[in-house]
């Protein structure tokens, strides 16, 4: 019924969202309000810090998700890009008294330029070669950072002074000096970045990316400037990761090059694949896996190595059986479990065989 109505007047249907859409939007708003105002009240400082990291890495994950899930470009160097963003933001924060949002924007834009400089030559490569060259570049950036170091309030272009005794912390915005306030601040920035990604996916670039992911020659034949849209995706991902780096700089106060090892880029790709690259929720799941679970295990006294092993198993599982990741798999599994329970309650034992057959028909 609803479907036929929509077919008659697509324009009106677009203006008036359907009920499930409204429900979903309502749930998201309630969830965000809870995260912004409820969560900081409930959590200890330890977990508030952790959740700030989750907000930061959800931005990194959503950027990587755009590359991997939407366009089909695998980058193994995203943590190096995050380090560039953090470096630029820290340098600007020490050098200027500009307001924080402006600094974040600048960090994003400068990181974007750096990403474009890398992307321009690298995008001539494809598939495996592109992934490996990003890994190589990440390795090179890590080596440079280890020598250059993060700014610590020193002078000169690099802003590093190795003999500084009292290192000033990287400042935070005046409205978000405390940890709970900074958590809210980073969530708001993350929401803006997610909205930016959503705006891209729903419009022309998103459709071009989808075409490129399906088949690049076909996209080319359809008149899509594949080179331009791939570069655009690269630029967008670098921008968001750069902004995330800026938020990270304020969150931790002190930055060290040892905090951005090349292998983190590899782990990050693993969790992003596990979370799910085809939905924005996947980025949130990935960030929770990457930052929240280690804190939780640390609190319980369990070694974080188990988590690394879990991530390894997760990657293999995602690639062999569940390409859309946890964000897709868990709701499906829960729905299936729910249906199974409902059936079991309605008709006990005798019709179990029938239920099994129906389930088999709906399989993935």
């Amino acid at each position, binding site marked *: 019924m609803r479907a036929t109505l929509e077919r008659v007047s697509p324009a009106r249907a677009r203006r008036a969202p359907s009920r499930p859409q409204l429900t979903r939007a309502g749930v998201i708003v309630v969830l965000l309000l809870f995260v912004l105002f409820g969560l900081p009240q409930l959590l200890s400082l330890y977990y508030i810090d952790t959740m700030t990291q989750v907000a930061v890495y959800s931005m990194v994950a959503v950027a990587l998700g755009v590359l991997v899930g939407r366009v089909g470009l*695998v980058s193994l160097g995203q943590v190096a890009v995050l380090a560039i963003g953090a470096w630029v933001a820290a340098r600007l924060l020490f050098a200027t008294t500009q307001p924080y949002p402006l600094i974040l924007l600048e960090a994003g834009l400068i990181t974007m330029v750096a990403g474009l400089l890398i992307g321009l*030559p*690298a995008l*001539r*490569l*494809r*598939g*495996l*070669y592109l*992934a*490996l*060259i990003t*890994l*190589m*570049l990440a*390795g*090179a950036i890590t*080596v*440079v950072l*280890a*020598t250059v170091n993060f700014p610590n309030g020193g002078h000169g272009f690099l802003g590093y002074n190795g003999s500084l005794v009292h290192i000033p912390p990287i400042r935070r915005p005046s409205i978000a000096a405390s940890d709970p306030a900074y958590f809210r601040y980073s969530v708001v920035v993350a929401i803006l970045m997610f909205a930016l990604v959503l705006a891209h996916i729903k419009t022309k670039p998103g459709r071009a990316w989808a075409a490129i992911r399906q*088949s*690049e*020659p076909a996209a080319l034949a359809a008149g899509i400037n594949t080179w331009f849209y791939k570069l655009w995706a690269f630029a967008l991902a670098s921008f968001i990761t750069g902004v995330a780096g800026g938020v990270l700089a304020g969150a931790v106060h002190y930055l060290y090059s040892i905090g951005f090892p*090349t*292998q983190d880029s*590899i*782990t990050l*790709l*693993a969790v992003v*694949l596990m979370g799910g690259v085809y939905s924005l929720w996947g980025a949130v799941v990935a960030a929770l896996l990457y930052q929240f679970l280690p804190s939780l295990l640390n609190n319980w006294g369990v*070694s974080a*190595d*188990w*988590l*690394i*092993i*879990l*991530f*390894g*198993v*997760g*990657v*293999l599982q995602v*690639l*062999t059986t569940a390409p859309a990741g946890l964000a897709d798999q868990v709701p499906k599994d829960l729905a299936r479990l729910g249906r199974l329970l409902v059936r079991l309650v309605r008709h006990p034992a005798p019709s179990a065989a029938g239920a099994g057959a129906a389930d088999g028909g709906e399989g993935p």
Partner: protein
Amino acid sequence: MPSWQDFQPFIVSGLALGGVYALSGVGLVVLYRATGVLNLAFGAIGAMGALIAWSLIQAGVPGWISWLACVAFGGAVTLGYGIIFGPALAKRDPLVKAVATIGLTLILYGLMDLLWTTSGGQARSLTLPTDNSGFMVGQVQVTWTQVIALAAGVVLTVATGAFLRFTKLGTAMRAMANDREITATLGVPVRRVEAAAWLGSGVLAGLAGLLLADLVALDATTLTFLVISSLAAVLIARLRSITVTFVAAIVVGLLHDLLTPITSLTNYRDMTPFVIAAIGLLVLSRHQVMAQSREEA
């Protein structure tokens, strides 16, 4: 600028390092050509093998059994992974296959960190008896381990090249590199040939791990991610030519160590493989901008 005298020892160590990179590179290329899998877990497998060898030696097991255990572990783990995940991913893009080996890398890396904790602070080291004996070339001390490393690189490159060219199994592997389906139609036992490639590559991983543990450091993180350096050589060879892999590996190893005495560049010497790979790839890619392989289509 340092004098020629200062560079001499680094030529020797650079050649040795290049030899092991070549060894790893050959292992990676052979597997890639036969199965389409770029094994990013190569370093992790070697590292775990080396750590097992270390533990065995600590427990009083004779050295040569421990070294064999290291090589056998490399072969067994790689073969096991290949048998379980090889067929499941056989029809997927090379990129997916490579990312899947990241899963194995993380599992092994987590296990190593769990079983051989580094928090104790005691540095482990694996020494081969060939470390202490050597000879002098001019004024430079050369250990037999360094000779073995370079020789292993040379011998294995030549032997693998000959194997691929002249033996039946090698021909089958080359055929599969071209087209897996057609090769299967021609009656080649595809699974068995792939298993052989996995096993051979795994043995090379164990060997490389053992040599690198001695030449560089016995440390899970270092050894696991040292594979990135040998990847540089493999990339320049476009994952195909064993000869180019060998030459590139030697160049990477030599340049890396020769930068050590130059004070202004010594901090940047670890960038060598990445920079060489990046330049090499970008120059090579100019000639085939839209070339698309069958697997990617």
